[in-house]
């Protein structure tokens, strides 16, 4: 174990290495044959074995906060004084434009005043008073764009680089590229909003055509449920939990070992035996990682865990920190669920009718959880090695939606921010036009964000590829540039 590991948790334990483990298992085999099998077995046994990066990494882990529905940049991160000057004037006097759901109404200035913050003096709106205090750690990409104004395809694009479903998500590419740093927990963990799945559902963290082992493992954030599906038998079979399990497991491994011995050379069989051992370890490690009892009152207060609305997201953020501490490579947190019509407040950032109502609600949630996460990571010395990303699938229009108080979808411009993990804080890249309608200077897409994140993790986005149906596929398709300006 690297004594300088950024994961303090690991320094407390010594694990049997995978190689030792295989040697123990394979004790009955001839040494020569075993050696010949070694490489294949290594890959078959654990495709998540740590792999060498393409270049030295600045970040060891990623926590991505995803705000589905379309977070309005002009009310939050992207200061547009010219928009305020044109308040109430027609946005599209000639009536040429049609947005996703409406014809544009009048120019609508930010619903919250903007102020300068921190040593860097960057502007942020009053929707985020706590994040404003962290601005010197954050770097903004103001010129983000999407290829579509539809939630489903735009979600897929933001997560996988393609507007069609079926492509691997960023988290699965990262675990494919780097393997896992944890031997007891999944490498890619997803914490969906307790209110429901985001638009497009679990495909957003799917492995696409990559082996399924790389797909995100959903951690149930409901305190009542086991953290991972099927971690234990359900309530219906509660009597199966407990010590009797060991006798069953021993019997199973007896069967499997005898079976494997007769089929010497088939490394998949050994891999499956090892998978059952790892499953048993997961039954200990997953409940430990998700149990917050050991956290101090100050920490619980920092994340506002006992607040009815804010606390659920605070819990997701705190879980993310605990997972990263334990070696999880990629954690994705969703701040918002799918649209439904059942609720009076929108269940995500998709504020078509009443932006103050919906962004007001979600803003307080994001502000508290994300600022707590940045502060907590920093105080534990983890921020330098943990890349925090906050994004949405697109932005919102600088015009009001029709005559109402909402805003329609805007794929032409939005803001994403990153912090920690090799990011130069207090900086910004790209800009939008005077009104925040379209990206102006240094237009960027998710390709560039992905390329930059991979770069910080030590991966070259042009080299990280996988053959599928005739094409050597990449997360960044045939695009993407590392944004050097925001790297420290």
């Amino acid at each position: 174990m690297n004594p300088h590991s950024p994961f303090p948790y690991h320094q407390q334990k010594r694990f049997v290495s995978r190689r030792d483990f295989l040697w123990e298992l394979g004790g009955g085999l001839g040494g020569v044959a075993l050696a010949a099998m070694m490489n294949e077995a290594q890959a078959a046994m654990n495709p998540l074995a740590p792999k060498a990066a393409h270049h030295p990494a600045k970040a060891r882990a990623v926590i991505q906060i995803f705000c589905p529905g379309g977070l309005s940049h002009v009310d939050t991160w992207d200061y547009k004084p010219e928009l305020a000057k044109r308040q109430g004037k027609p946005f599209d006097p000639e009536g040429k434009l049609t947005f996703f759901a409406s014809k544009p109404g009048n120019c609508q200035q930010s619903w919250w005043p903007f102020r300068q913050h921190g040593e860097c003096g960057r502007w942020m709106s009053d929707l985020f008073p706590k994040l404003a205090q962290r601005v010197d750690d954050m770097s903004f990409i103001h010129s983000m764009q999407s290829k579509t104004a539809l939630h489903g395809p735009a979600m897929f694009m933001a997560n996988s680089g393609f507007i069609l479903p079926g492509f691997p998500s960023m988290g699965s590419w990262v675990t494919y590229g780097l393997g896992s740093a944890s031997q007891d927990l999944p490498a890619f963990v997803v914490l969906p909003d307790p209110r429901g799945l985001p638009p497009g559902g679990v495909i957003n963290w799917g492995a696409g055509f990559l082996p399924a082992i790389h797909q995100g493992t959903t951690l149930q954030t409901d305190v009542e449920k086991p953290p991972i599906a099927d971690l234990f038998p359900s309530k219906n079979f509660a009597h199966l939990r407990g010590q009797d399990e060991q006798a069953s497991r021993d019997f199973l491994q007896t069967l499997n070992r005898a079976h494997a011995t007769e089929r010497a050379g088939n490394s998949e069989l050994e891999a499956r035996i090892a998978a059952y051992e790892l499953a048993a370890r997961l039954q200990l490690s997953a409940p430990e990682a998700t149990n917050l009892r050991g956290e101090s009152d100050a920490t619980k207060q920092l994340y506002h865990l006992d607040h009815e609305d804010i606390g659920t997201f605070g819990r997701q953020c705190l879980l993310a920190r605990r997972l990263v501490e334990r070696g999880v490579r990629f954690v994705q947190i969703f701040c918002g669920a799918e649209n439904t019509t059942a609720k009076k407040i929108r269940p995500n950032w998709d504020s078509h009718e009443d932006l103050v109502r919906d962004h007001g609600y979600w803003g307080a949630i994001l502000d508290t959880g994300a600022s707590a996460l940045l502060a907590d990571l920093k105080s534990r010395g983890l921020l330098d090695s943990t890349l925090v990303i906050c994004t949405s699938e697109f932005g919102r229009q600088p015009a009001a939606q029709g005559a109402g108080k909402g805003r329609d979808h805007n794929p032409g411009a939005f803001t994403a921010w990153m912090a920690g993990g090799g990011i130069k804080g207090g900086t910004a890249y790209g800009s939008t036009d005077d009104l925040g309608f379209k990206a102006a200077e240094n237009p960027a897409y998710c390709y560039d964000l992905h390329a930059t994140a991979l770069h910080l993790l030590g991966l070259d986005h042009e080299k990280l590829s996988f053959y599928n149906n005739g094409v050597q596929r990449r997360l960044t398709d045939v695009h993407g540039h590392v944004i050097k300006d925001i790297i420290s």
Partner: protein
Amino acid sequence: MKPAIFLLFTASAVAVDFDREIRPLLQKHCVECHGEKKQKGELRLDAKSFALKGGHDGPAIVAGKAEASPLFQRLTSTDDNERMPPKGEPLSAAQIAAVRTWIDAGAVWPENAADKAAVVDKRLQHWSVQPVGTGFGTSASIDAFIQASLSAKGLAMSPEADRRTLIRRLSFDLTGLPPTPERVEQFVRDSDPGAYEKLADELLKSPHYGERWARHWLDIAHYADTHGFERDQLRPNAWHYRDYVIESLNADKPYHEFLREQIAGDIIRPEDEQAVIATGFLAAGPWDFVGHVETKSDMLRRAARAGDLDDMVTQVITATMGITINCARCHDHKLDPITQQEYYQLWSVFAGVKRGEREVSAEESKRLADEKARLGKALAQARAQIAKLAGEGLELATLLPKDSGIDLRYGTVTKDKQGYHRDIQTNRLQKLQNVPGVKWVFVPDGKGVVTLDYQVEVKGIPATSGHFWDTIANRPLNAQRSTKLGDTDYSTKGHTILAMHANSGITFDLIKLREQSGLEALRLTGLVGFGASKEAAASRADFTVFVDAELKFQKLKLRKDETAALDLAVPASAKTLTLVATDGGDGIASDLLFIGDLKLVTEAAESRLTDAETVELKKLRAEAQKLESDLKALPEPAKVYAIVSDPQPPVIKLQRRGNPEDEGAEVLPAAFTWAKHAPSALGENATPEGQRRLALANWITHSDNPLTARVIVNRLWHHHFGQGLVTTPSDFGLGGSLPSHPELLDFLARELITHGWSLKHVHKLIVMSKAYRQESGFGFSRNNAAEAATTLDSSNRLLWRQNPRRLDAETLRDTVLAVSGKLNLARGGPGYRDFHYTEAYAPIYDYITPDQPELWRRSIYRFIVRTTPHQFMSTLDCPDPANLTPARVNTTTALQALTLSNNDFMLQQAGHFATRLERETGSHEAAIRRAFALAFQRAPSAAELQAATPLVTEQGLFALCRMLLNANEFIYLD
């Protein structure tokens, strides 16, 4: 300006030897940028024909005139930006002089082999586009080809596997199910040397063969039962196509016919239901409701359509011919000889094809519709006459078909319950066809004008959101929680409900009603109120009644706990009666309005009936009752989720960089020019939609098409051996793998074609081969030295052994059910739904695991949801149906171990397995023996029996069953 130095050499020109002086010079200084790899300025100087043709700016060499030749001018330019070569020193004076002399002397370029070879497109030499080989002698066989390539490496096949292994392998491969212990014993003991062949024939005839192999085909069609994307709605009629695939395979339908039907069955045999259903293939993939329908932006609609066409052409070409084409959406294919234009020519073939529900038989649908109209009209007349005679009044709700609703978007009658809609053109009248007495329905926004006939405008409807929920219906609404107003429950006998969720409007045809009933002056009566639950949020709604254009009644901001009574005169001269429910200005949530006992009653005093009239009334009532039951008995026309065809498709233009907003030149329907088996042109702009598809289907299934037969026999091989002769089964292009046994592949393709495209014939050839029947062990101390075989061919491409394989997710689930004794072998029909479905903007699918026989069907009958994959199945590597999946990926993970150990389904079935053992045996030992026979098709060893006994004694049979279902031997095939 020319440097003076060149003048010196002009005079002393001597003959130049091109091959000795000029060709090497071009090779050394020019070809790096003007050759095969790069063509700067579109100029190549590496071969004669290119060099003499010139580049972007025209000819580079003017024979006989060096001074006029751009090539010479660029070599001698004094401008550093112009002079070639661009890097390093200019050519020496001697070299330049040689070039001048050569050009002036006529630029003679003797053609050598390299010149000739350079002109040939190497991509067209690729193995897979060459004609399929012919003339295989009688000695040709799978084993002869396999043996030959093994011998060349000094290797040999492994011995034949034992019979227990063979029956397990063959049963799973052909049917996806384990053999019963009884069949295993029978086979093992059968002394007939033809026992194996008998078994193969038996399994190929089994109806489970089609169920197994349909799964493989549906993987490459990326079939599912919902749309996918954000609003992942149900496709309740997609299953017809799944059954078509199963039945076609069971019937051993000739493969080329199978393909032709799936691409153009509706054109080939429009009267054949199965041929129409076959086109479900084209619609099998995902479809974005929001992009196609909901958005108001035309640009987004164009983008969605582009994605749709890309998916369709990619699927067709990849599935049938195993070549990848979607690279060519943005630029010419980098590897394969497919241009961007050719890619869009394929779009043109499908330009008139959209995914959608269609009636399976137009003829039958029309017959049913006519019959429905006839019965409906007769019933309306009978009811009206009853109303007139009895003075009971006419229940307006009963004009609508019982237990049905009217879809506000189309004016059609539907039994489906519907959800939230905000994507409709408001104030547009949707005429009704087969509902006598009702003219039309509409969605009012209260801002625009609703115009009835004769420019009669209806005014005074309150402003609304223009959204709506559900149909107008003769029954409670979807989500309606109460049918009581006051003390009356209107869902009980003798009462009626006309449900009108905001925002909706309906117009009754008083002229028709009067014609039928003879009623003249009328009164409208009824009670309006909410059907929302008491707990629902406070909500207001409005109700308005128009007689012709005159506003006769209006109740604004009706509260949830209020009702409003209708009782108003309808004059004899009135032509229409219009009812409008609107949202009260606070959105449509909870606006579940309905009218109880809505009636038109005669103004005349109740008539005293004569005897004759009493008889007549009785007769009419009997007649009405009969008509009603006849109507109810009429089936809905069968529908399938397949394709909706536009006979005059839009013209397709190439999209630059794949951008639908940047169109280039028009293209015509055509296939690829590189394939020489048939002309590539498939039609003109005037060619009807269906003929284009038919032409493509014929082009693909042409017996000389070099790919179609090769691709399918390789797919069969892939599933029998775990890897294909070509290991990239959907990519036979330059990026794909080379065949391990090219002649064998051609031999099998030729066998397929010459045996009437029979897939079962090829299956039989494969499973009868020695290669297939080999042992799958690594061959230690057998025919091959382990090290020799693993060193020479570690990935077993030469097939010195059979490959062990893991059961895929579907087979594993089916096998668990088969072993537990609970497998429900019911075939065909709508898929089983193991989820709770909640109607919402984006429908919600919550998976459940009830222990019920309808969920114990084979996995091929699972209702497949795109956005919410089945966790159990996905964990076991069931692929995402967004992808075309020619080969499943196998992973081995801890989550799989957890799922197989702890998932409710597994534990339930372990319980059933244990119960079965108790029922079928009488002792622990017998139970353990039976358990091994069911799960592993063999008896336990002494050691296994010894290990299992204490487990069973201490923890019961359940623990044993649970672990056997987790064992490697259960999940792997030798």
